[in-house]
Each structure stands twice: as structure tokens, then as C-alpha cells.
């Protein structure tokens, strides 16, 4: 086994890290609230190939796998980048897989990132997919509808309701232009695969988020004094940080392994994706909660940056729904389905 990130992947991540250092400070993240979308930053990421790398524009060059997208999601998550990286990547992967059903104009749009193509997590009911990621800013979506898995324009985008994660989630109505990518069983399978990819990328972003929160907390306990000493000298603070450090290592490896398992078509890819999603969600919430707590009362105020991590740690995975249903799904994959009622 080899956990090392390749030099070319490190280089890829460094490029985004440099971009975010300059253009995605926590101040900028605040400025993008409450919508939670920084169009300028997203444009820069598109120019760098954040989405197009999934379907390589260069003939003969290998497309980026989920590992590459997951590593970029870690970097983006760490600074809470207000961009639709996860959903746009998932949508692009679906389109790539169903390329033969996609009209060239849609393909060109996808490569250019305009209109913004998102991925609807929930099936379309009465022409609407409820609370789709980036639904408030998307011009098109991949969604599971009655006729199958469709690529469609979004009809009159709805504004996003104020929400915990200050994310542009919104109901998405199926627009006039619709292309059926897959129908019947193959539509269901393709949608399930897309959800699987979404889980791994969201988990990777959550690992990044947790790393960001952890670093802020660690820096804070090294300068904040109480009772005449640094609060970072208290054993209860140290031990919780130590536990979180180890859990974060584990979550990082698990997310990368899940992405690798998908790229290499491993049998247990689905299981690993669910594990990564559940574990990263759990760790991110715990790390963000304690990181806020170590700040004391000031951590609870909107002035303090840590609240931005705390809200998103809970909000990002919940866009999919109650995590317990993922646990149930995982148990089904691990232990086979429940016996029929006797």
C-alpha cells in the first residue's frame, strides 16, 4: 500500500492553494454570504480546469480521476471556498459517462462551465428537485426524472432560502430543454453512481473544512491565556485536539481510499464511499464543535471566523438528508439485505 500523493497531484493542489490564499480569504468567504457563491473565484477555477479536467480537452491525455477532484475538494474545503466544485464535478462525470447521448452544444457548454451545470441529489417530483446544491445559481442540472436521468436547463432559478450553511441550495424546476441521458435501470444506476461520487467529494471537502477549523483552534489555544497560562496547556484541551488530529488523519486516508477505489473500479468502492461520507461528516462536526468551544463565548459570535466552519460542517452533508439513511445503506452493503418478513 502506498498513501503518497503523486508529484503531479501535489502540483495540482498547490495551484489551487495559491489561488485561494489570495482570492479566498475568510473575509472573502464572508463577503460571498449569504448566497455562498463567489462567481469570480469560480470563473478562475474553471479557467484552471477544475471541471474540464474531468473530461480532458486534450486528445490522448488521461482524464483526471475522482482522486484528483477529491484532492482539490480538500484544498477548497479547507478555506470554505464558496464554489460549486462538488456538484459541478459530479455533473461533469455523469455527462462524460453518457457522452454519446449528449448533444455537442451541451458538451461545449460543459467545458466552458456556462451555464453552470449542477447535480440534483433528489429525484424530480412534480417537475421540481427539492433543495438542489447550487440550485440558486445553476442554469442547468443533471437530475433523475420520470423519463430517466436527464440533462436539462433550470427553469427560472429560485432564490435560495436563508440556510445554516449559507449555501446556494434551492428548488430546481426542470426547464424546457431536456436531454435524456439514460432511462430505466441504467438511469437508476448512473444516478446512484453520481450520488456515490458526491459523497466522496463532499467527504473530502469536509476533511479540508475540519483541517481548517483544527488549525484555527490550534493557533488560538497557543495564544489565548486564562488563569495566567495558555489554554493550550490544559490537558482537557490538548487531549481533545490530539483525538481530533488522529481522527482527521483517518478521515483523510479513508476519503482518498474511497476515491481511489472508484477510480480503479474496486468491488468495495460503494462501501468505502459511504464509510468516507459518514466518517468525515462525524469528524468534521466534532472538530468544528470543539474548535468553536475552545474559543469560549467569542466563538459563538458572528464576528469570530470559527462559526463559519461550525455551520458548514453540519450543513454540507445534510444537503443529502439524514445520515442515518446512509448508515442503513452501508449496513445493507456490508451485511446483505434484511430477510424477508416471515
Amino acid at each position, binding site marked *: 500500500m502506498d498513501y503518497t500523493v503523486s508529484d503531479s497531484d501535489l502540483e495540482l493542489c498547490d495551484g489551487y492553494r495559491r489561488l485561494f490564499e489570495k482570492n479566498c480569504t475568510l473575509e472573502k468567504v464572508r463577503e460571498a454570504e449569504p448566497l455562498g457563491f463567489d462567481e469570480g473565484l469560480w470563473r478562475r477555477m474553471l479557467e484552471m480546469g477544475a471541471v474540464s479536467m474531468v473530461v480532458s480537452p486534450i486528445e490522448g491525455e488521461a482524464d483526471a480521476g475522482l482522486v484528483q477532484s477529491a484532492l482539490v475538494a480538500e484544498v477548497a474545503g479547507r478555506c470554505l471556498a464558496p464554489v460549486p466544485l462538488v456538484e459541478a464535478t459530479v455533473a461533469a462525470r455523469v455527462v462524460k459517462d453518457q457522452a454519446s447521448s449528449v448533444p455537442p452544444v451541451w458538451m461545449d457548454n460543459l467545458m466552458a462551465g456556462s451555464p453552470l451545470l449542477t447535480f440534483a441529489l433528489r429525484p424530480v417530483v412534480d417537475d421540481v428537485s427539492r433543495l438542489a446544491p447550487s440550485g440558486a445559481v445553476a442554469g442547468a442540472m443533471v437530475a433523475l426524472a420520470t423519463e430517466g436521468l436527464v440533462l436539462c436547463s433550470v427553469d427560472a432559478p429560485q432564490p435560495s432560502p436563508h440556510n445554516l450553511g449559507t449555501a446556494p441550495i434551492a428548488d430546481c424546476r426542470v426547464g424546457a430543454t431536456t436531454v435524456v441521458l439514460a432511462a430505466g435501470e441504467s438511469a437508476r444506476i448512473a444516478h446512484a453512481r453520481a450520488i456515490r461520487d458526491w459523497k466522496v467529494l463532499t467527504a473530502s471537502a469536509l476533511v479540508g473544512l475540519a483541517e481548517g477549523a483544527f488549525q484555527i483552534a490550534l493557533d488560538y489555544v497557543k495564544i489565548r491565556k486564562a488563569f495566567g497560562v495558555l489554554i*493550550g496547556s*490544559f490537558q482537557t484541551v*490538548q487531549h481533545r485536539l490530539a483525538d481530533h*488530529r488522529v*481522527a482527521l*488523519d483517518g478521515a483523510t486516508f479513508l476519503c482518498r481510499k474511497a476515491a481511489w477505489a472508484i477510480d480503479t473500479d474496486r468491488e468495495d468502492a460503494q462501501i468505502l464511499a459511504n464509510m468516507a461520507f459518514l466518517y468525515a461528516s462525524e469528524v468534521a462536526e466534532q472538530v468544528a464543535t470543539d474548535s468553536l468551544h475552545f474559543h469560549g463565548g467569542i466563538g459563538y459570535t458572528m464576528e469570530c471566523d470559527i462559526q463559519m466552519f461550525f455551520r458548514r460542517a453540519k450543513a454540507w452533508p445534510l444537503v443529502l438528508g439524514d445520515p442515518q439513511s446512509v448508515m442503513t445503506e452501508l*449496513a445493507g452493503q456490508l451485511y446483505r439485505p434484511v430477510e424477508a418478513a416471515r
Partner: protein
Amino acid sequence: MNFDSTDKERIREEVRTFLQANADDELLGRRFTWPVDGTFYRAYCRWRGDNFDGEDVGILRTVAEEMDLAGIELTPFSQTILVGATLSVVGSDYQKETILPQVLNGEILCALGYTEPDSGSDVAAATTGAQRDGDEWVINGQKIFTSQAEVATHIFLLTRTNPDVPKHKGLTLFLVPVDTPGVEVRELYTLAPHPTCVTFYTDVRVSDEMRVGAIDEGWPTMRVALEFEHYGTGKTTVPVPPMAPSATLINNVHDNAVEWARQTRRLDGTRVMDDPSVRSRLARIAIDHEVTRLLDYRNDPALAEPGTGNGTKLFGTEAYVRATSALMDIAGAEGLIAQSEPTTVARGWIDYAFRDAPVRTIGGGSSEIMRDAIAERRLGLPRNRGK
């Protein structure tokens, strides 16, 4: 990046073949006791030496994992290897040339004589004294948790050679043959089927050849040994297998519990396995197992920062405790039946593991010591306790 572990399949196959030839049913059947058996281990060492020239830690871990799965826990042997690894770093020429080969071929089996009744985690507060007398040293004192001393040939003993300097400065280590006059070994029974030992030292005379490391330099020597013990990837030609194979322990108890839950019906006729709450709790254990295994197998040199080994030990043992508690709950009243009873559930694994788990977060450095080490060495936080 490659998380494939099937390259270890060949090794697994070889381990299975070796076990078939060398481990009789009695040994394999003694699942819930420490299977310390000199004959078996010597055979194991010969086989290891013959088959795995230039082996790496990953291979050794796979070997240990496969043995654990067969019910033969290598912990007692691992502590011998860690003494060997320590000798390979700090040993004298004589020790490297004469003792180390005996450690590697299984003639020497070691127990660790660190802890004393009055100083648990504060290892450096040891008071067992060693006084020089010509070419010999005379040792007097007592150690506790000298596990496997009842079968060991040698004890890797931490002594105080200078009581007049700060505690970390006056320590010296020895490799003491257990059959030396004045060494007394007493078994101490534990919650689990495996005992530990108390060892007493009365005017024990040891040759200076058996001193490991310089006089009064015992603490730096201990640091080398502890680094190995805490899954460290210290610089040595002797790869050290994991001391606390938490991933396999979790795996064994989980798999046996799953098998039991599938085969068992409750009074209302429903299968235990079909209870959604049971399934969720089992799946949660499976996640902890996967994470433990990933931490255990990490090999990225960039991640081998100080304190990462402590993290692996901390996480795995704590996860094992969580898992065994949850599985006891799932088994309910049936889970109370001891593994020695024919009616025990999950082939005795749940009862065994629940009793076994608490010591794993204590032995080999308690979880608190692991957390302190991570906080201080990896996170750069100020030391929270006295020297």
C-alpha cells in the same frame, strides 16, 4: 497512491501453509490465552528468516495480521522483536553479534521490565536499583506487568544506577536472563484469560556485557524502545510488527458477532441481524475497523511525523473498547455467558474481547500518555505535567 493490499496475498498464503505445518490444533484452539510456546516461535523465527530476507514492516504486519486471524496473537513475540530492534540501534558489538541473532532466531524471548508498583505511566521514576560490582551489576527491586515473564528467557530491565541526579538522568537498561539466581516470577491474574506477571529481583548479579546502552543513559535508550513500541517507524534494520494489533482484534470480534447475529433469532422469531439498530451499530464498528487499518498501514514518510505512531495506538485501542462495549449490548443477556461455557455466543469472542479491551488502552503506554505525546510532539503544545 495505491491502497491495494492484495500484493500481500502471497505472504498470507505462506503464513497459512506455515501454520498448517507448525501449529497443532491445541495451539490454534487456545484462542483466548496467550499462545506463548517456545517451540512454535522458534519454528516461526526460522521460517521468517528463511522466507523474508530484507522484509519490510508492511510484510511483518501482514504476517502478524494473518496469525491473529488464525487466533495466534504475536504480541508476546513482538516485544522480543522490539528489544532486538533496540539492540540493533544502541547495542554493543557483542550484543549485535551474539545476542541479536538469538533474538531473531527465537532462542531469546523477552519480557519488558519497565513498570513498577509505585510508578505506572511515570516510567522514568523507576527505583529498582543496580549497583556496579567489578564486571557485574547487582540488582534489587520489583517490577509489575512484566507480561510473559513466565515463559520469557530474558527481561529487558529498566534500573536506577544513580539516585542523586534528576530522574531521567540516572537510569540504565539491562537484558537479564530469567534463570539468574534471585529473579522470582509470580503470575498475576487479570480480567482476561491471559495473566501478567510481577517480578522480584534480590541481589541479582548480571554481567556488564548485558547492559544495553551507556550507564545512566537509560532514558535515551528507552526512547528508542518506546518509539518502536508505539508503532514508530524508527531507523532500524529489524522491522517491528505492531504491538497492539487493534485492527485484527476489532475484525475478529466484529466478524464473529456478525455470524452470531445472522444465525440467532429472538423470541419473536426475528433475526438479530435484521434489527436496524443492530445493523447500524455493526456498520459503525466496520468504519472504525477500516480507519484503524488505514492508520496502521500508513507508510507515507511525510506522515511519519513525531507522534503519528502514538495516534495509531490511541485510535485503534480506543476503537476496540468502543466496539466491544457495543457488541456486548447487542448480545444482551446472552453476551454475559463466559467464553468458557458451551453456550457462549459468537464463539466466545464478545466475552473475551470485552474483557481483553480495557488493558489495550493502558498497556504499552496509556491513551493519556499517547495524547500527551501527540499534543507535545506533533501539535507543539506546551508540556502539561511535571518532568
